């Protein structure tokens, strides 16, 4: 371990604070809930979670909370992710790898357009056609 300066410690603290902030749902109008049961983890849910956090960071989104949950009962399409955006129906995505996770943030969270081909708990067709708005 390299010798840390107080400035390094301050930076580390800020990073941790930001990371913790993303887990805090207080005051956030978007929630991304990643299924991290054994089935999800085996299918790569950690990669999806990391990708969500990275993409949120890159786009400086501070209204998004990323949390984790257990198995959602859709083990055949793990990793599964529930996305809750204010004003849009709650959606469960399946087969979410790192690339799809990044797409979900950019398309669903930022542009309010569902990533339709990965939606598994599907809202009505007219809602999907309407992009979920």
């Amino acid at each position, binding site marked *: *371990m*390299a*010798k*840390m300066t*107080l400035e390094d*410690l*301050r930076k*580390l*603290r800020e990073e*941790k604070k930001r990371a913790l902030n993303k887990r805090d749902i207080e005051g956030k109008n978007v929630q991304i809930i990643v299924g991290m049961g054994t089935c999800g983890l085996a299918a790569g849910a950690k990669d999806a979670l990391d990708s969500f956090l990275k993409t949120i960071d890159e786009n400086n989104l501070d209204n998004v909370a990323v949390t984790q949950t257990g198995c959602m009962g859709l083990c055949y399409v793990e990793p599964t992710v529930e996305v809750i955006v204010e004003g849009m129906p709650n959606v469960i995505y399946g087969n979410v790898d790192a690339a799809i996770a990044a797409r979900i943030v950019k398309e669903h969270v930022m542009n309010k357009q569902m990533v339709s081909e990965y939606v598994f708990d599907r809202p009505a067709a007219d809602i999907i056609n309407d992009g979920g708005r």
Partner: protein
Amino acid sequence: MHETICDFLLDIIQNAIEAKASDISVTVADDAKHIRFSVTDDGKGMSISELGRIRDPFYTDGTKHVRRKIGLGIPFLQQAVSMTDGEFEISSEPGKGTRITCSFPADHIDTPPVGNLPSAFLAALTYPGDFDMHIVYSIERGPAKDGYELHRSELIEILGDLHMGQSLIMLRDFIQSQDESLENIRGAR
């Protein structure tokens, strides 16, 4: 049990905190021949008559542990110091504070091992209470000298509550990184 110099050091620091000190200064110096430490506090201090009794293991001022009839911290330390031909000094003034300095010869067979200094510093910095603490650790091996300093108030300013899970982990890593940077010099003779 007091098995290491760190155990003695923590005992003395705890005494300082319990003496309602608001500022505690700790120095630990290792120059290969001696391991010295000093603890200076601005706590309630002791009168001459109290000072005269601190070597008595059956004396305690009764404030820390109301029902306990013994006070073994300083007697144990003194015993360890005298067994190793080390040095022990205490000065105190009521209302002004206490200073304890102590030195162990490094090559005496009865000198206790130093113990885990980073853990001891972590424990000292995270004792509950409203006080500031300044720890200075220095190490010397021939011409090579190095060390580090830890200020409790500065660390609280950066990390917030030092007892909270993540702050505690960051504080531990910080102290560990300071200590590991001295590994080269520590190994040299």
